[in-house]
C-alpha cells in the first residue's frame, strides 16, 4: 500500500470565536504521490479550510478546534509547526497581491529557499531550474506587483515549486484569469506533474480543471459527498451540490455516453454520427426581443495611462433593455472603458451621451444617478454597520430615497436574512449581491458590472444570470465586463470585443465567435457550447 503524502482521518474543524458549526465534518481524504486531484464544491463547502489543514496553517495559524488527524508524509501536522511543513506541502493562495511580498521575482523565488537555510549556490541553481520549468526567466528582475494576473500566478507557483515539495496545493488558481492565462497555468502544472509532484487544485471552473485531474473530490457542507475519477464523479448530478457540470459532460449524459466525455473533442469522437441528436438541446442564445431605443452612446473614446494608449477610438451604442458584454484578454482595456463610462476617468478624446445628453462635464458622483456600478471587489465600498444602511447610502446622498424601491431590492437580491448584519461578515457571493443592490439603489437606468462571476460558484452564476435578465426586462441596460465567456454567451445580448484598447468586433456571441481572426486577436477561445454547435452543424451538413 503506497504511503500517502497527505491523509486525514475523521477530520473535524471549527474556527475560533464563531457561532458556525463544524466547517469540516468527519473527512477522510488522501493524496497519493504524483497524482493530480481536483477538489470542488460550492462556496462555503469547506474547500479552502481543508487546504489549510494540509500545511498546518490550521490549527497552528488559525487556532480553532480540530478533531481527528492530518498526516503529512506520515507525520501528524498537529505536532509540527508550519515552517516545518512548508517544504513538503506548498500552498499557492487565491490572492496574488498578498502572497508576493518581495521586491523582485528572483527574491520571491529565493524567499522559501532562504527559509530552508540552503547555501547560496544551491539557491541560485534552484532558481535557474524553476525558471526553466515555469518559463519565467525573463521576469526575474521585475517587481511581482507590476506583473499581469497570469504572470503573478506563475511566480507564485515558481516560488513554491523551487522548494521541491511533495504536494502543491492551489486555491482557485484560475479565478481571475483570461483564457491565455489559464492555458499557461495548465501547461505549468502539467510540467510540475511530470516532476512527480502531486497537485491538488481547488476550483469552481470545472471545464478547465477536470481534463487535468486523475481524481475528483466533491465537498458539501464539510463532507466528501462524491469521490472518484472525473468520469465516475461526473456521471452524477453535481447541481445538487451547487456545481455545474462542464458542457461536454452534460451533453454526454443527454446522448447516454458513459463514461462521459470530459471535453468537446472527446464528446464528438464518442458521439460519432449521433452528434446531430444534440441540435434541439443546444441553447439558442439570448433573445433580443425586449431591446428598445438607444440609452447610451460612446463615440471615439480614447484614454492614455502615462502616455500609453489604454482605450483607442471606441464607439458603441447601448440600448434600453440590453445586456452588453465587454470581453477580451486581461489588460485589453475593459475596466478602463467602464471607468470612462461612469466618469471615474475622463476621456482624452471622444464623447459619451446618455439619452442624447453629453456627459462630458458631469462628475462621477453625479453620473451615479444614471449609471450604477458594481465593482469586482465589494470590500472597497462597505463602510456602514448594516447591509440596510449600506444600500441606503447612494439614494440618501443623491436625494432619491425611496423605501419601497429599497425593500424591492432587498427582496429581489434575497438580502432579508442578513439585512441587519455587518456587510463585512458576509460570504463572497452575499457581498456581491449587496454590492449589486447598492449600485441599483438610486434607480439608475444603466448598471455597469465588473467581473461579476470571478471566484463565484454555479449557484451564484445562475442567480446572477436570472437577475440580469429581470433587470433588462424592466428596461434597464447592463454593461458587463467579463472574461467568463460562457456566462456572457448565456446572458448577454451582444458582445463588444476589446484587444489592446481597441473595440475590434461587436455583435451577438455566436457571430463574434464565428470570426476566428477576431477571437485570435483578442486572445479568446470559443465556448464549449459554440464549438459543439458548430460540430453539430457540420455533422448535419455532411
Amino acid at each position: 500500500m503506497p504511503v500517502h503524502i497527505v491523509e486525514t482521518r475523521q477530520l473535524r474543524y471549527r474556527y475560533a470565536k464563531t457561532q458556525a458549526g463544524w466547517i469540516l465534518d468527519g473527512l477522510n481524504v488522501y493524496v497519493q504521490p504524483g497524482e493530480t486531484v481536483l477538489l470542488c464544491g460550492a462556496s462555503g463547502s469547506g474547500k479552502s479550510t481543508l487546504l489549510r489543514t494540509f500545511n498546518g496553517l490550521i490549527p497552528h495559524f488559525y487556532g480553532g478546534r480540530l478533531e481527528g488527524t492530518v498526516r503529512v508524509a506520515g507525520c501528524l501536522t498537529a505536532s509540527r509547526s508550519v515552517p516545518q511543513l512548508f517544504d513538503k506541502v506548498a500552498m499557492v493562495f487565491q490572492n496574488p497581491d498578498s502572497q508576493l511580498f518581495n521586491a523582485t521575482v528572483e527574491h520571491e523565488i529565493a524567499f522559501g529557499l532562504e527559509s530552508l537555510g540552503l547555501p547560496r549556490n544551491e539557491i541560485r541553481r534552484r532558481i535557474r531550474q524553476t525558471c526553466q520549468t515555469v518559463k519565467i526567466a525573463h521576469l526575474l528582475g521585475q517587481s511581482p506587483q507590476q506583473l499581469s494576473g497570469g504572470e503573478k500566478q506563475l511566480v507564485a507557483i515558481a516560488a513554491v515549486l523551487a522548494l521541491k515539495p511533495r504536494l502543491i496545493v492551489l486555491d482557485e488558481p484560475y479565478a481571475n484569469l483570461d483564457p491565455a492565462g489559464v492555458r499557461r497555468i495548465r501547461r505549468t502544472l502539467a510540467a510540475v506533474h511530470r516532476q512527480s509532484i502531486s497537485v491538488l487544485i481547488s476550483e469552481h471552473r470545472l471545464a478547465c480543471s477536470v481534463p487535468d485531474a486523475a481524481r475528483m473530490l466533491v465537498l458539501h457542507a464539510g463532507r466528501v459527498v462524491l469521490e472518484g475519477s472525473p468520469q465516475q464523479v461526473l456521471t452524477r448530478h453535481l447541481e445538487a451540490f451547487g456545481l455545474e457540470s462542464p458542457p461536454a459532460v452534460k451533453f454526454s449524459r443527454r446522448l447516454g455516453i458513459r463514461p462521459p466525455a470530459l471535453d468537446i473533442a472527446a464528446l464528438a469522437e464518442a458521439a460519432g454520427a449521433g452528434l446531430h441528436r444534440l441540435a434541439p438541446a443546444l441553447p439558442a442564445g439570448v433573445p433580443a426581443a425586449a431591446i428598445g431605443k438607444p440609452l447610451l452612446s460612446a463615440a471615439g473614446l480614447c484614454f492614455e495611462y502615462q502616455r500609453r494608449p489604454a482605450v483607442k477610438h471606441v464607439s458603441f451604442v447601448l440600448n434600453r433593455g440590453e445586456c452588453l458584454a465587454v470581453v477580451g484578454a486581461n489588460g485589453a482595456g475593459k475596466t478602463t472603458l467602464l471607468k470612462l463610462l461612469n466618469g471615474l476617468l475622463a476621456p482624452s478624446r471622444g464623447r459619451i451621451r446618455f439619452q442624447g445628453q453629453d456627459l462630458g462635464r458631469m462628475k462621477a458622483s453625479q453620473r451615479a444617478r444614471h449609471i450604477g456600478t458594481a465593482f469586482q471587489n465589494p470590500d472597497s465600498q462597505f463602510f456602514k454597520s448594516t447591509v440596510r444602511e449600506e444600500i441606503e447610502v447612494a439614494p440618501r446622498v443623491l436625494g432619491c430615497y425611496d423605501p419601497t424601491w429599497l425593500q424591492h431590492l432587498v427582496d429581489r437580491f434575497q438580502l432579508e436574512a442578513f439585512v441587519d448584519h455587518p456587510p463585512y461578515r458576509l460570504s463572497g457571493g452575499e457581498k456581491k449581491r449587496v454590492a449589486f443592490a447598492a449600485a441599483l439603489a438610486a434607480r439608475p437606468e444603466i448598471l455597469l458590472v465588473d467581473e461579476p462571476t470571478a471566484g463565484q460558484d454555479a449557484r451564484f452564476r445562475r442567480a446572477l444570470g436570472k437577475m440580469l435578465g429581470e433587470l433588462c426586462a424592466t428596461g434597464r441596460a447592463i454593461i458587463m465586463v467579463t472574461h467568463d465567456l460562457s456566462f456572457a454567451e448565456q446572458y448577454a445580448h451582444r458582445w463588444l470585443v476589446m484587444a489592446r484598447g481597441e473595440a475590434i468586433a461587436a455583435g451577438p456571441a455566436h457571430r463574434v465567435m464565428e470570426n476566428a481572426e477576431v477571437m485570435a486577436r483578442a486572445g479568446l477561445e470559443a465556448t464549449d457550447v459554440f464549438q459543439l454547435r458548430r460540430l453539430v452543424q457540420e455533422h448535419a451538413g455532411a
Partner: protein
Amino acid sequence: MLDPRTHLVLAIVAGIFTAVVPRITATAAIWLLLLVGVAACGRIRAYLRWLRLAGSMALFFGAVTWWAADFGAAALAAVKLATLATVFFLFFAVTAPEDLANALVKSGLPYSAAFVFRTALQFVPILARKAGDVLDAQRARGLPMEPGWSALRHYPAFFLPLLVQMFQLAEELAEAMEARGFGRPGRTFLKNYRLTWRDWLAIGIGLLALILWIGITVNNRRLPGL
C-alpha cells in the same frame, strides 16, 4: 556596486548636510550634486514625477514659513525640503528595501524587525492602489469624494473600507509568509552582503567631510567670541 549599508550611511550624511547648512547657495549645490546622481542612475523621468509631489509639499512648507517669517527663510526652507526629498529618492532609487533589510540583519538587526521595515515599504504601492479603488467605488455610487471640502464630510467612506482591507491584507500576508517558512531558524541569503574597501572608502570620505565641516563651522563660530 556599494553595499546597501554604505548607501544608508551616505544618505544620512547627505541628509545631515542638507539640514544644517545655513545658506541657500550651499543647499542648492548639494541638490545639484544629487541631481547628477539621479541622472547617472537614468531615473530623471521618475524623479520629475516624484518632484511633482515633493515639490508641491516644499512650496506649501515655504509658503507657511513666509507667512510666519520672511521670504529668505521661506526660500531656504523650501529648497531644503526639496533637497531632502531628493536624498530620499536617490537612496531608494539605488537601494532595494530587501537588500537593505538583509544587510542590516547581517549587521545584527533582528530579522523580524528588518522584515517589517521592508514589507512596509513594499506594500505602499498596493495600499495606494487600494485607496484609489475605495475612492472610485464611493464616487461611482454618488459620494462626492472629488478633492474638496465635501469629501471631508464623507471621510468614513474612505477610511473604513481602507482600514478593513489593510487588516485583511496584513492577515493574508502573515499567512503567506508563514506558509513560506518565515521564522524558521537558520535562514540564509541569496546575496552576499559584505563591506569591501570601496564601501569603507565611501563611508570614510562621507564621514570625514561631515566631521571636517562641523569642525570648521564650530571653529568659525567660536572665533568672534575669543
